[in-house]
């Protein structure tokens, strides 16, 4: 239940519930293994990058496990910006990406470039 964790949090200082907390932490570590790092880092984020990236997520998996569609997680800022610029100008073919790129401002593309580069680095570090 969503409310349960708040209750645990509120009682965390009490000796009798500390055991329960340890048990829950142990479970969280086990469950954590099943969660992909990319999904976790996305979890706490509703900032500019995450909001714009939600648009990309309709076609590109944010855990990088794409098949048949190029993965965009882990591209460097420069790679991402160059690719989007090339779609925007028509230098690179790909009508869906051209439509997407043309709807984004250069500033929004820069925000996305930073966002995906940071996600890529985070995934590598772990």
């Amino acid at each position, binding site marked *: *239940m*969503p409310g349960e964790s708040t209750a645990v949090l509120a009682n965390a200082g009490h000796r009798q519930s500390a055991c329960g907390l340890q048990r829950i932490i142990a479970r969280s570590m086990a469950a954590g293994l099943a969660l992909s790092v990319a999904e976790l880092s996305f*979890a706490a984020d509703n900032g500019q990058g995450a909001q714009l990236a939600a*648009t990309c997520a309709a076609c*590109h998996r944010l855990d990088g496990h794409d*098949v*048949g*569609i190029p993965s965009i997680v882990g591209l460097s800022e420069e790679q991402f910006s160059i690719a989007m610029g090339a779609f925007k100008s028509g230098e690179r073919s790909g009508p869906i990406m051209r*439509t997407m790129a043309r709807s984004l401002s250069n500033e929004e593309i820069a925000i996305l470039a930073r966002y995906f580069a940071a996600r890529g680095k985070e995934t590598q570090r772990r």
Partner: protein
Amino acid sequence: MTCWTRRQFGCLAGAMCIGALRPQAARGQAKARIIVIGGGVGGATAAKYLALGSEALDVTLVEPKAQYTTCFFSNLYLAGLRSLESLTHGYETLAQRYGVNVVHDTVTAIDPVAKNVSLEGGAKLSYDRIVLAPGIAFKAGAIEGYDDAATRIMPHAWTAGPQTRLLRQQLESMADGGVFVLVAPPDPFRCPPGPYERASLIAYYFKQYKPRAKILILDAKDTFFAQDVFEDGWNRHYPGMIEWLPGQFTGGIKAVDVKDRSVKTARDTFKADVANVIPAQEAGRLARLARLVDQSGWCPIDPMTFESKLQPAIHVIGDAAKAGNMAKSAFASNSQAKVCAFAILAALTGSERLAPHLFNTCFTLLASDDAVTSAISYRADPETIKVNDFFLSKVGDKAETRREAVREADGWYAAFTHDIFG
């Protein structure tokens, strides 16, 4: 506690190391309650992004069915190119990873004054905001004789699942040389290329197994989406197999007779061996129940937030919404759900709000190695939503471009359903 959720993980992580960074998860503070009604593409996406966006929301998704079968790509099942199971998705990940409270029940009433939702099972849920994604309903009496019982003889297959399976069974049982009649609806309706992709992919099946069969499309309209691209595809892949009769030729579709599987237009009666009747559509039942529908049959909304113009604190997304020039499609519903979720997050948690980005992308198969694509970006303002930029495949595209689009379509389906349910 039987399952572990992201929400709980987040709170514990906060308690252990970064508590100061999570003011919304402060102890004892009541969470804002969001009820998402309808677990299709729009509803499931909204529930996921609301839960992902903040710990300060309590997100409940109410959906009667345990699993959802996507209507998009269900024409590939009719063609024998995919199983229905591969198009079916559960809500487990929304519950377990994102902490969405998934309730399998049916909404019987929405009270916008007391701000609660009644469920068939007896529960009454209070809300601060509702996101309603009720999908479509068929207009009662639009085609005489086409009632619930008739759908079991002449399926619509316009919501995927048993109806789609029934249509496939009928196509399999049909003799070679039989006539398949497809009744196509008037605008606006769910998935503008859908009926014509269906004709294409049923022709793909007939070409292999019943090469003497014919397909007759009786259309309520005089033109349809990407008509030249479809007609070119039909001539190349299935010459002489598909005939399309516009509304101006038939005078409109008037009635069906389930006894002899016939469709009556203003001028003729067409007898079918298999008939697929897709009637005129309007916003789903719950939209009417909650008085969210105007005289158009659809739900007027604020394009910046998708909040209803008729009931405050209720947002309507997906096919039921009257979203300017946006197509009624799964992709559009997913796009609207995100704009709506971020607007609610901004209103309730003070998170930053960006200008809405609304899109529609579509992969449509003409054959197993020939897909056409379209992409549309939209511009929303406080009044309406207009097309900003538009792309559609053209007659004369290279064969390799169309083959590549089939591969992209497969990859897109996997990524898109992961975005919604994964």
